[in-house]
């Protein structure tokens, strides 16, 4: 006879506890937050100026973050908040005192009472003056109460800016990157075990960063030199001349990571090869401790900067945070 008592086994409880202790950093387009490690981005749209990112667990969508940049020189955030208040739900909305976030002021909760059989809808709005970043977080009213509480009391209070004069943080799934300033995201490729982001800046600068894992499997399928050549984006320019890979290493945290570098000259095929030629430098190392291949490529019209690539690769990391104290 089946036992109808719904008890939780010790192994199950242990797994749940381990999962609860782990958190995931999600950083995108100038903002970052911490969330349970089972949650994941479901959909990412837009670019640096405006866009939206949907987060959910394996079951359903939990919340959506929309971002945009204040364009006007005399932008009034209070007026913007009042406008959102009117447009989202009319007079039934009320602005509550939001939790205090260092980077976002003013900020407010906009809540709409339940309509009919529907549940209470909630939205958080905030403005970060340092980055002129407008952020809205819309909670899914159909999500579990427990998930909604988690968003309100743990996820949103961890929200902060992810960009400064030193650069910007990008973290998605289980890969995090630190990108130098003045570079904007132009392309992304988020595959299981293969996360690639590509940025562009003034002077035809292009920076591509990539983490491939598990490294053991990746290196079985392709050598490191081949990984350095196989970037998952297409472009007209081709590397010209001798572009053989040379051994390269990176010292990080008292640990030497071995890898390769490849320097070359990128140009459009003949007869237009003289137009917009660029220097390119790509580096890749095998981080055996984390089991990842860390790759970066930098194209510029001037001399390619190896120091910049070293810094970018050195700051590549996982996005899973182990037992960090709650804010």
């Amino acid at each position, binding site marked *: 006879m*089946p*036992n*109808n008592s*719904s008890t939780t086994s010790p*192994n*199950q409880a242990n*797994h749940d506890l*381990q*999962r609860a202790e*782990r958190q*995931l950093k999600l950083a995108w387009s100038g903002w970052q937050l911490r969330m349970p*490690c*089972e*949650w*994941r981005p479901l959909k990412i749209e837009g670019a640096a100026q405006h866009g939206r990112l949907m987060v959910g667990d*394996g*079951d359903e969508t939990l919340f959506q973050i929309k971002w945009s940049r204040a364009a006007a020189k005399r932008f009034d955030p209070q007026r913007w908040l009042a406008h959102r208040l009117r447009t989202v739900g009319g007079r039934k909305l009320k602005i509550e005192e939001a939790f205090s976030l260092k980077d976002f002021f003013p900020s407010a909760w906009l809540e709409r009472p339940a309509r009919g*059989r529907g549940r209470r809808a909630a939205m958080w709005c905030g403005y970060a003056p340092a980055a002129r970043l407008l952020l809205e977080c819309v909670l899914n009213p*159909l999500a*579990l*109460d*427990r998930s909604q509480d988690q968003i309100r009391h743990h996820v949103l209070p961890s929200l902060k800016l992810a960009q400064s004069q030193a650069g910007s943080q990008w973290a998605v*799934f*289980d890969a995090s990157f630190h990108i130098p300033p003045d570079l904007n995201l132009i392309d992304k490729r988020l595959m*299981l*075990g293969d996360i690639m982001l590509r940025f562009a800046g003034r002077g035809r600068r292009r920076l591509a960063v990539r983490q491939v*894992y*598990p490294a*053991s*499997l990746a290196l*079985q399928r392709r050598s490191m030199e081949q990984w350095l050549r196989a970037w998952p984006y297409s472009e007209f320019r081709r590397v010209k001349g001798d572009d053989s890979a040379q051994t390269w290493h990176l010292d990080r945290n008292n640990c030497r990571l071995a890898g390769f570098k490849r320097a070359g000259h990128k140009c459009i095929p003949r007869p237009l090869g003289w137009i917009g030629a660029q220097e390119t430098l790509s580096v890749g190392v095998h981080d055996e401790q*984390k*089991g*990842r291949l860390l790759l970066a490529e930098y194209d510029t019209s001037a001399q390619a900067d190896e120091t910049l690539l070293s810094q970018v690769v050195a700051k590549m990391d*996982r*996005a*899973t945070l182990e037992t960090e104290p709650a804010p």
Partner: protein
Amino acid sequence: MSPTRSANLDRRQAMSAKPIRVPAIKVVDRRKEGLMVTVTVHRPGWQRWLGGSEEFERTFGLDVLGRWVYQACDGQATVRALIDRFAAEQNIGLAEAEAAVTTFLQTLTGKGLIALRLDRRPQSIGCGQTHSDRHPDREQGG
């Protein structure tokens, strides 16, 4: 159609299912290259009608990670536990591990290499909610 394929599972049931290996005729361990597994497969009815035999043998090649998942299907560990172990051993995030492992388990189930042992007990979702509390409209809509 096999009962496993026709089972309509929600996510929580699927996560608590215990995958178990179907007895294989031959297993060849190729060390760094993975595993070759030979199993007996029932021929579809229309092939039998055309004169095919009842069963035939099929061999599948699994890579290193595939071998890890296949060998972890011991009938004791749940899918959730497999995902946790896979994420910890391969140094990857839970969300990615979940996508990879569940997709691979679906493939193995479809190929007849493993079966899922289900616990048919009603399960609570947590915080005093049941699945019907969570999606009242779905239940009313049938």
